[in-house]
């Protein structure tokens, strides 16, 4: 019950008028930016970072919580009202959601997404309260070799996302690790890859990397392929649901949450798998399977809940282990580090006030999101019609401002451009960006853990492998790496009926 007391204290810290105002502001701005086409949750957080620079850490986190959920919800609004999905995690929402909207049921689609997100987010955050401290307790007993294994698991997870090329994922990871190398080695003070430029001695700021890869890279990529006739936006009134919609939605919400949270909490989880699983399940269980593909409300309710619950789930490894498993968590982690706060097991001991204030504001942000989105949906829909030149010029404008503001040096703008071009090339050649950003953030930590492990074993290489926890993790990594082989074997065995989900 210790956690509950902590949580109540967290609420106590958050529930002041100024903090509530910041939470409301975070949710509003987060949703508004997240709704804009081409801007996913990760880019929303990255672009809105500068807003929080002038705030105290606790207040900044309160705002982050709002931006986080707002950005997530904004993304699903876009995929329902526009016919093309932005994020891979909202692909499924777009399948049914857009069909519903075209059939004149946009209001119901938005309502089930909003309420489902609220339900899933609330349950997910509650589970976070229960699970994270347990993970912390466990994590404190872990040694350097175990951490190294966990980091490697995160690398393996990020590079072998379903359906994408592993070699391209691995290439992206290595590029990220190299970017992470730049700067002075913390242990010996030796400069690495600084090319003699003094400003590079402190390394390349993760915020600059995130903004460059996500925002500038995306803007350049879209600019190169801009649709001259942007997708038609479907007009929408105030979201509402009829009785039968409620009846058809509540079970998918809960099932989606049940998929989303645990998978999101895994170091190699993510949001794609639970949303696809949820979609497949709802299709199978539905009493109206014939509606799937033509706008079935279950197909929006379940995946949306799964998406949001997995977002709450990713906060478990992020806060308890310092391990980001999706792009949004990676950017949040970058933001935390820019405040000099290193998430991980020690964070719960050193800064309990901060952690619990953040968690309390997740609840509050989620509630505001619901209160705000139902009445404001028509306004959000209008944002989708913003002229594209202004939208992408605006992204570049705010990205430049944010990157400059980190250290007030023009060199960061040059780095931003170079990283933006890298992000552009990665999008062109189908290299995933998540492994890169994870490599930048976790690479230096993994190296430190490896060197600590070797220090404990006096340089003996066996010190890297460590105890039972590490063995289990390495076994998991092996399975993940060998998965295409295993899958191939399985397919040979059951060639009769090829099951294709999604």
């Amino acid at each position, binding site marked *: 019950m210790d956690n509950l007391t902590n949580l109540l204290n967290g609420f106590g810290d958050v529930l002041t008028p100024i903090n509530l105002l910041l939470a409301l502001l975070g949710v509003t701005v987060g949703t508004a930016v997240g709704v804009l086409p081409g801007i996913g949750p990760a880019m929303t957080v990255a672009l809105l970072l500068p807003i929080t620079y002038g705030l105290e850490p606790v207040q900044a986190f309160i705002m982050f919580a709002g931006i986080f959920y707002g950005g997530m919800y904004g993304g699903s609004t876009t995929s329902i009202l526009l016919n093309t999905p932005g994020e891979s995690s909202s692909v499924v929402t777009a399948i049914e959601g857009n069909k519903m909207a075209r059939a004149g049921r946009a209001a119901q689609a938005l309502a089930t997404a909003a309420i489902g997100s609220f339900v899933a987010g609330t349950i997910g955050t509650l589970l976070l309260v229960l699970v994270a401290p347990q993970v912390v307790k466990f994590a404190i007993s872990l040694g350097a070799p175990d951490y190294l294994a966990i980091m490697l698991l995160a690398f393996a997870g990020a590079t072998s996302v379903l359906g994408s090329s592993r070699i391209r994922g691995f290439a992206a990871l290595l590029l990220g690790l190299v970017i992470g190398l730049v700067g002075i080695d913390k242990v010996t003070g030796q400069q690495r890859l600084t090319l003699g430029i003094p400003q590079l001695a402190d390394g390349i700021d993760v915020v600059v990397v995130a903004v460059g890869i996500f925002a500038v890279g995306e803007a350049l990529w879209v*600019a190169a392929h801009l649709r001259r006739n942007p997708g038609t936006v479907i007009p929408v009134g105030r979201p509402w649901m009829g009785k039968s919609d409620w009846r058809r939605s509540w079970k998918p919400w809960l099932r989606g949450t049940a998929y989303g949270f645990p998978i999101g909490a895994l170091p190699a989880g993510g949001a794609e798998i639970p949303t696809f699983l949820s979609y497949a399940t709802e299709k199978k269980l539905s009493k109206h399977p014939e509606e799937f593909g033509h706008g079935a409300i279950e197909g929006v309710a379940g995946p949306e809940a799964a998406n949001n619950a997995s977002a709450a789930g990713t906060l478990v490894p992020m806060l308890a282990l310092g391990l980001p498993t999706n792009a949004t968590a990676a950017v949040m982690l970058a933001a935390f580090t820019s405040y000099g706060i290193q998430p991980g097991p020690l964070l719960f001991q050193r800064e309990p006030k901060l952690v619990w204030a953040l968690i309390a504001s997740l609840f509050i942000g989620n509630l505001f999101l619901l209160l705000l989105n139902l009445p404001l949906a028509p306004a959000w829909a209008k944002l989708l019609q913003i002229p594209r030149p202004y939208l992408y010029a605006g992204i570049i404008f705010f990205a430049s401002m944010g990157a400059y503001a980190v250290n007030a040096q023009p060199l960061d703008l040059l780095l931003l451009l170079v990283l933006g071009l890298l992000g552009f090339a990665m999008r062109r050649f189908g290299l995933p960006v998540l492994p890169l950003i994870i490599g930048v953030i976790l690479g230096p930590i993994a190296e430190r853990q490896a060197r600590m492990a070797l220090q404990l074993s006096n340089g003996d290489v066996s010190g890297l492998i460590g105890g039972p926890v590490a063995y289990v993790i390495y076994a998991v990594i092996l399975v993940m790496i060998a998965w295409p082989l295993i899958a191939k074997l399985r397919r040979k065995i059951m060639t009769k009926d090829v099951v294709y989900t999604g």
Partner: protein
Amino acid sequence: MSTAETPREARRDTAQYGVCGFLAVVGALVIVDAARIQHIANSNDPIGPKPVPIVLGVLLLVVAVLYAVDVARGGTGEAEEGEDVDVTSAIDWRTVLLLIAAFVVNLVLIDPLGWVISGTLLFWGSAFALGSRHHIRNVFIAVALSLITFYAFAIGLGVNLPAGVLQGIL
């Protein structure tokens, strides 16, 4: 992402060999840079700062080769899709280069002239690059955005943005 095949991908995407080359060059650069580091090892840090970059450099070279093999076998990466992206169209280099130019103008002018002026040029230039031809309206929007962000962030929130030549006026 979607598994839809565009007819364009039926053709070989040989530009991918450029990516392999890039990875190899980065790998070589990392190794060369690491070779320059003096070997300092003591009981506190048995391996020193050298091995990790060397391992990464070697892995990059290996990946560059494997990538090339994958490309030779007909492997392609799926270009990223999005709400406003039409992947079937060819890359519009004119827009991209103009955007880069606007970006560079901001990067060069931000310190001497200040954010309000360089930011205005950045927004106006980007909007122009992206095909907006309402020149006068764009100037007003760009100036308004730069002024609002300057007052809100630099003065309101204490974020680092230079006033430049307008120091004292703003």
